[in-house]
């Protein structure tokens, strides 16, 4: 069993508190994604779970065991780094087997385990190469291989795909998801990319300013974001959010409506505005409006519709899908 439990976890650098009391339970076998803007503390939180970053107070349990004082190597975790962190002077085989050789695992057993991992990741032909001679995607696989061979209870990923190009990234997303299904291990994954979070996660943890903003499945966060921050962070294009007078006329402090939940018509509608800019994506078209009552408003409409710049249109929100926040 490898549940990961964080209890009132805090971290300060001097007087600066960067993690301000985090309570979280990650179930066994769950794919949990930490997401948030840069500086929100998501990487620090992951490094605290790994033990690379000591925490200031609180407790960390992995598999029912309090590992707060344990060395990183004693926590039953493995980590995949953003820049892969492959040892440049070692071959792929030596890289994957490095931890085993430190643990003085006999050579035959070590080779057997490395070969098995290489088989899973299709790295067999590259075992005797140095990392320099590998492509980005292959290096990424070696880094994952180095994690798998440790047979950890928990995998930790620190923005592992951010150095890859867009095509490779979407391929690796699928590979990682398949890997998770095959291994069934608990995985904790840090990213700033909400697409990665939405597509891969069983559970998303949205962090902001060192605190948890909301925890839920991808669809829960999309359907019912608990705060305006989550509402603005999840979904693309971003949700339209209005504060002040415009929100008060709707009877709340912050009013939000997603671009895909707006209807645009030439006839009557709730708001009147002018088309400022049109982005054609093919299947969809994103229309940017200037609405005198609200300010800028973004709508996603069917790709077949056409609007001219400066054209006057009406926009209406789907009242069922609008979000109203207080305070």
């Amino acid at each position: 069993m490898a549940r990961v439990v964080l209890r009132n976890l805090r971290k300060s650098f001097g007087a600066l508190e960067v993690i301000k009391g985090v309570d979280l339970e990650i179930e066994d076998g769950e794919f949990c994604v930490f997401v948030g803007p840069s500086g929100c503390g998501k990487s620090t939180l992951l490094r605290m779970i790994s033990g690379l970053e000591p925490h200031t107070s609180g407790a960390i349990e992995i598999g029912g065991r309090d590992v707060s004082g344990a060395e990183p190597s004693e926590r039953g975790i493995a980590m995949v780094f953003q820049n892969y962190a492959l040892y440049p002077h070692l071959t792929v085989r030596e890289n994957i087997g490095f931890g085993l050789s430190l643990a003085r695992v006999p050579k035959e057993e070590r080779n057997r385990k490395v070969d098995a991992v290489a088989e899973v990741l299709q790295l067999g032909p590259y075992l005797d190469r140095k990392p320099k001679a590998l492509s980005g995607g292959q290096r990424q696989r070696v880094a994952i291989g180095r994690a798998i061979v440790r047979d950890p209870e928990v995998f930790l990923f620190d923005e592992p795909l951010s150095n890859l190009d867009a095509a490779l990234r979407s391929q690796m997303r699928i590979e990682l998801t398949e890997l998770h299904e095959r291994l069934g291990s608990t995985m904790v994954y840090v990213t700033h990319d909400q697409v990665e979070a939405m597509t891969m996660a069983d559970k998303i943890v949205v962090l902001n300013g060192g605190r948890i903003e909301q925890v839920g499945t991808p669809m829960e966060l999309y359907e019912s974001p608990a705060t305006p921050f989550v509402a603005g962070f999840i979904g693309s294009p971003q949700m339209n959010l209005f504060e002040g007078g415009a929100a008060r006329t709707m009877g709340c402090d912050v009013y939000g409506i997603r671009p895909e939940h707006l209807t645009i018509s030439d006839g009557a509608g709730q708001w009147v505005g002018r088309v400022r800019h049109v982005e054609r994506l093919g299947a969809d078209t994103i229309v940017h409006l200037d609405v005198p009552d609200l300010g800028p408003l973004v709508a996603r409409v069917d790709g077949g519709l056409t609007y001219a710049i400066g054209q006057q249109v009406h926009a209406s929100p789907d009242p069922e899908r609008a979000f109203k926040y207080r305070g």
Partner: protein
Amino acid sequence: MTDRSLTARNYAMGVVALLLAFVVFIVPFLFVAINAMKTAPDAAQLDFSLPERWVFWENVVTTVQTRDYALLLAYWNSTLITVCAITILVIFGAMVGFVIQRRPSPVSRFVYVLILSGLMIPPAVVPTIWVLQGINLFKTLQGMILIQVAYGLGFTVLLFRAFIATIPRELDEAAIIDGAKPWQVFFRVVLPLLKPVTVTVIVVQSISIFNDFTHPLYYLPGRDNVTVQLTLYNFQSQFASQNNLLFMNILLITIPPLIVFVFFNRQIVAGMTSGAVKG
């Protein structure tokens, strides 16, 4: 500045520069080489004529045989001091540079400033002799080796620290998660990656230790401990009339740096200019 092709102007300037460089920098070395091949009376003229009789090999033999093969003993001593001091410098210096770079703290900064101060502060020679006598290392090769380590540490740590800054910290962290102890992180992951800067340290420090005259003069007196630079100095006082042998001696001790220079030009340049272009 932008036109890097060989224009007529650049060609002309190059030729003029070559002529000047020849007179200023190459002629003195030619002077050494020519006179090293002359007989003693011929070389006493100190002029630039070609040797009346070419006695290169005889001069080599005589120079080497002088004072019971003092030059060979000196070569052995200098090599021993250089090799041992550099081995210690590289390992211990890299360890210091590693922790100073990876663990920014008041302790690290204090150690760094202290070690760098060695680049500026002149060694207090007589008190150092007093300390060496106290630990029975005065007039010993071991003492000389440790002195060279102490005096070379500032430069070595400076170079290692700067280079280690370019090694991603994630490599250490990956090793820590793989279960490496601090000394394993250093010796199995970091040290193998320091090869380029280690070559630089070895080359630059070996030249400086091999060429060192002042410190062996103070800390390593005595016939049995003679080093290469001291033989040359002693030679001059003993054979004032035998310029040919003096120049042969200069020639013989200039060869090692020349060979090193030919093979490690790039590393020497890297080492000597580190810190010049401030980061």
